[in-house]
């Protein structure tokens, strides 16, 4: 993928991956009027015969996708993350329960979405989809990794939810490193033994910055991109708990039930160590710039670095 200097938004990676699947006549793309935003429009422009417009009607889209899947197709359906939630019960009862392979993409997730305000900022999607048996839940951090993970879904044998983000962030992956990505395996960007920061989505970049800050204070941090929230890479989390003894999670999502919740559950069951959770602290967002909101909600790199110090101090 050619790299615009300003980095990449994960939604662009989703659109780019769909274009890579144009030759596969079993791949179908479903839209609910937001193809220009989720980037499925790129596929539609090239292959309208395999693109289904369902209008502003998400519940219907979910199960049209399910019907196509049971007829031999591999559906990639997208809308905004928040609007997928309108079809949650359809996903629960009509997709996850019968384990029908539908790949659902919710774009514009998190408060990073910005000026649209709280109605558009899904901060609970990862949590709710994670509760469903059979579901795989992904949240890549940039366009390069989003492309790689979307392509990996082509042959994934379970239904999935992937959250993408609206805005560009500095890239954490090259084309080469993204080839190493595997669904269900966290990617270690940086290794240190004092604390581990486990992040997803746009917060991976903040976590890498935090690690730089900590290094200046003599604290060596491991940074993991936990792009797969479910199934969680519990082997890696447990190993980090044993090696570092203190963990921080960082997500553009409620601290309840998402990455922080998943890591907490894992630690409690396998190897309890101090954990600090950076994310949205049980409140809704509001209109503002992405960085302004991260600042206001104490989700910037410096907040992650402070949380790392707190976690270490609790050991």
């Amino acid at each position, binding site marked *: 993928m050619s790299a615009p200097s300003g980095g990449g938004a994960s939604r662009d990676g989703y659109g780019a991956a769909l274009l890579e699947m144009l030759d596969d006549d079993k791949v179908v793309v479903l839209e609910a009027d937001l193809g220009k935003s989720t980037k499925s429009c790129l596929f539609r422009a090239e292959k309208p015969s395999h693109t289904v417009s369902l209008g502003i009607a998400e519940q219907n889209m979910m199960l*049209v996708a399910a*019907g196509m899947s049971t007829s031999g197709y591999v559906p990639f359906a997208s809308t905004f993350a928040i609007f997928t939630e309108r079809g949650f019960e359809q996903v629960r009862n009509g997709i996850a329960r019968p384990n029908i392979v539908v790949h659902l993409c919710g774009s514009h997730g998190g408060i990073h979405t910005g000026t649209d305000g709280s109605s558009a900022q899904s901060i609970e999607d990862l949590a709710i989809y994670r509760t469903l048996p059979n579901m795989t839940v992904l949240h890549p951090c940039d366009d390069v990794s989003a492309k790689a993970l979307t392509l990996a879904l082509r042959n994934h044998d379970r239904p999935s939810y992937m959250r993408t983000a609206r805005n560009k962030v500095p890239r954490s992956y090259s084309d080469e490193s993204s080839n190493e990505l595997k669904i269900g395996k966290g990617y270690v960007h940086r290794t240190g033994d004092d604390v581990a920061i486990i992040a997803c989505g746009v917060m991976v970049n903040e976590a890498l910055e935090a690690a730089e800050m900590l290094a200046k204070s003599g604290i060596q941090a491991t940074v993991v991109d936990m792009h797969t929230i479910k199934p969680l890479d519990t082997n890696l989390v447990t190993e980090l708990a044993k090696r570092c003894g203190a963990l921080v999670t960082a997500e553009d999502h409620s601290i309840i039930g998402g990455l922080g919740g998943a890591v907490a559950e894992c630690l409690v069951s396998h190897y309890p160590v101090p954990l600090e959770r950076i994310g949205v602290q049980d409140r809704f967002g509001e209109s503002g710039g992405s960085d302004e909101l991260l600042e206001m909600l104490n989700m910037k790199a410096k907040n992650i670095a402070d949380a790392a110090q707190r976690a270490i101090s609790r050991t």
Partner: protein
Amino acid sequence: MGLEIPELESMAKRCRRNIVRMVYGIGAGHPGGSLSAIDMLTGLYGHRLRVDSDNPKWSDRDRFIMSKGHASPGVYSILHERGFLTEDDLASFRKLGGSCQGHVDMKWCPGVDFSAGSLGMGLSFGIGCSLAAKLDGSDRTSWVMLGDGELQEGQVWEGVMSAVHHEIDNLTVIVDRNGIQNDDFCETQMRMFDVSEKFASFGWAVMEIDGHDMAQVVDAIDWADQVKGGPACIVMHTVKGKGVSYMENNPKFHGAAPNEEQFILAMEELS
């Protein structure tokens, strides 16, 4: 299968007996909407649907989607007639590990194409099946049965709109207009007005029939097959609990089993 009308009528009567047996056997289930739907189910499976009990997952089979999934005894009884299910399967209704789950479930029961139970979802699934058939260049078709109370779910109308937009003419919806839902008569819960007019206003071809007249049932199925350029809707006027005197048009038997005395009476009436 192409059975004659008297054979279909006999088959429907056998199904009615099995519906009541299943519900009585476990002391739970939904007899009313199974009995209202069973003549159409018999017409579909006995006269029209291209399915194969030796190969239930045959990719080019016609799809039948029972969106009102609580009417599962009706589906199980007709699948039994077509060789998908044994007597033992029917006896497993609502029991732990049984193929006949409380609501129809494709993961548990051969011949079931959609896991229903939550109302309003089946039409969307049927649209997906029909779109896939068109992409495949196949002549297979999808048939979706909705309850009339189910039409209160908003998702139904999302599907109704999209089926016309995509000119899906390998799809037929059958509305079981029995006039009763869980709590009471539909008219007291949410007035329905003219169901046919609603579908027609969205651009569907619509035919109204008496859903207990087997000749009309078969004619309507044949009519739906001939509709081109868009989807077809059969609104069938039915009686909830049809065939069992005390269940007929009685909201109490939407989701309740007969007691022993009532069971014996039902078996006499359906003999």
